[in-house]
């Protein structure tokens, strides 16, 4: 068994993601279990879309599927959390949630934590890539998508 700090960027005990009952985002969470990043893309007009929705906001087609999204991202915005608002984070401060823009997927944005020294300077525009974080102790197990700098 791993202790609360060994494998995860954030301490254990935060809410787990559960695919929505209507199935809308299930393909995303199934893909992360395989360490694949997917996002919605309209089968008709090929527009990328995120967060998940039942129809394409561009052409209004309901034929919206999930496709592999190039994970080469850029930090679009960030914050550094110092005040815990959940009991689980009282020991894991600070931490750095980032909004990552995916230029290879129409500029859609995803959110995760930035790996590395949480007190290091964060640059908007810095290049990042996904880091799949398996929570095998979840019931059921799930995989989060975190982000790390590529160094380029």
């Amino acid at each position: 068994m791993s202790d609360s700090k060994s494998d995860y960027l954030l301490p254990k005990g935060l809410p787990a993601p559960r695919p929505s009952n209507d199935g809308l985002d299930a393909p995303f969470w199934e893909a992360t279990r395989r360490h694949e990043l997917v996002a919605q893309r309209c089968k008709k007009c090929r527009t990328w879309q995120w967060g998940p929705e039942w129809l394409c906001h561009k052409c209004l087609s309901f034929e919206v599927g999930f496709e592999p999204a190039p994970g080469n991202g850029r930090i679009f915005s960030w914050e550094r959390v110092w005040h815990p608002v959940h009991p689980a984070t009282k020991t894991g401060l600070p931490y750095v949630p980032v909004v990552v823009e995916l230029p290879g997927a129409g500029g859609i944005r995803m959110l995760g934590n930035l790996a590395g020294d949480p007190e290091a300077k964060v640059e908007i525009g810095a290049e990042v890539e996904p880091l799949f974080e398996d929570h095998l102790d979840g019931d059921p197990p799930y995989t989060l998508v975190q982000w790390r700098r590529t160094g380029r």
Partner: protein
Amino acid sequence: MTRSIRGQVAIAGVGESTYYKRGQAKEPEYVLTLQAILAACRDAGIDPREVDGFASFSNDQNDPARIAAALGLPELHFANMVFGGGGGGGSAAVANAASAIAAGYANCVVVYRGLAQGQTYRFGQGNYPAAVSGGMAFMAPYGVLSPAQMFAFRATRLMHEHGIERTTQRAVAMASYHHAQSNPRAVMRGRPLDEAGYDAARWIVEPFGLFDCCMENDGAAAMVLVPAERARDLQQPPVYLLGAAQGSGYRDGASIQNHPDMATSSFKTLAPRLYEMAGVKPSDVDVVQSYENFTGGVVMSLIEHGFCSYENANEFLSFENLIAPHGKLPLNTSGGNLAECYMHGLELNIEAVRQIRGQSTSQVPGAEIALVNSGPMVPMASNMIVGAASTL
């Protein structure tokens, strides 16, 4: 003929419960709400039995049918709730009440908000179950749980795209605290804030420090609206609704931080509509009440309402310019959400009325036009302009 609410409806009375720090009210939230409603009627000189409608926002838990029964109202003609949006619904609730009066559905509508966070739940805490679905499944597992954590991304972009400095956020916070010192209702009266105090405060979530964030309080606030002609006979100088707007821009409600324009308070499309309806320009506005969930949102709101530009915001939004009586843009003259009481912004709508009546504790001399904006950065925001009889 252009359809407009301008001049058709007046705010005849305003009132509130005692305002408390979170957890310190002895009365239940519902009782605070009844106290605020009765205080607003008393202020107006209206028999509470004359009330025939209610409007509120943000899923206020104090049921209007129960209130109507408790007050012994002969008839209830109108009850209305603004969808979601948190504090973004404040001015929209006033607009809905006014619309009901203008359309003839009701004759005397009370807008209220009862909110005792010490008794229900704290907005600043992550109140989450062990598993979450929908949009929150993409945020809560990453430790993004509270409003401050959801909105800090926007303030970061504001600073990045437009060079807004932290000292500008500081001026906004200091203006609210300054005005609270002369307001006997203000929770933070007796707790002045200077530059050193702001700078020394701990981070909550960068770029927000402690004083960039609104308070959590117990209390309730209410306003009474009547047809313009009715207001002329009542005991307070009538304050007329000149215009109001609600809504958002293109895909502002896209989830997981995918709203195309991130560094916005969501007022870019609302402000022009508001000014057009009210027949007012930014330079006509004597005093501004701008909802402070977080100071970065206030800076965005003031820019998007045309009081300054991105280029001169750091210079123009100085403490000296933001304080009554003689600043160029007196801001949040009751202390607002930061330092009077977090009544989800309805205390700001009330303060605008007091300014037009000449009854503020930080009065702007001769104020005739006041602007209120509600809930910057939320997916649906709202705003309104009120004016004295001289503006009709």
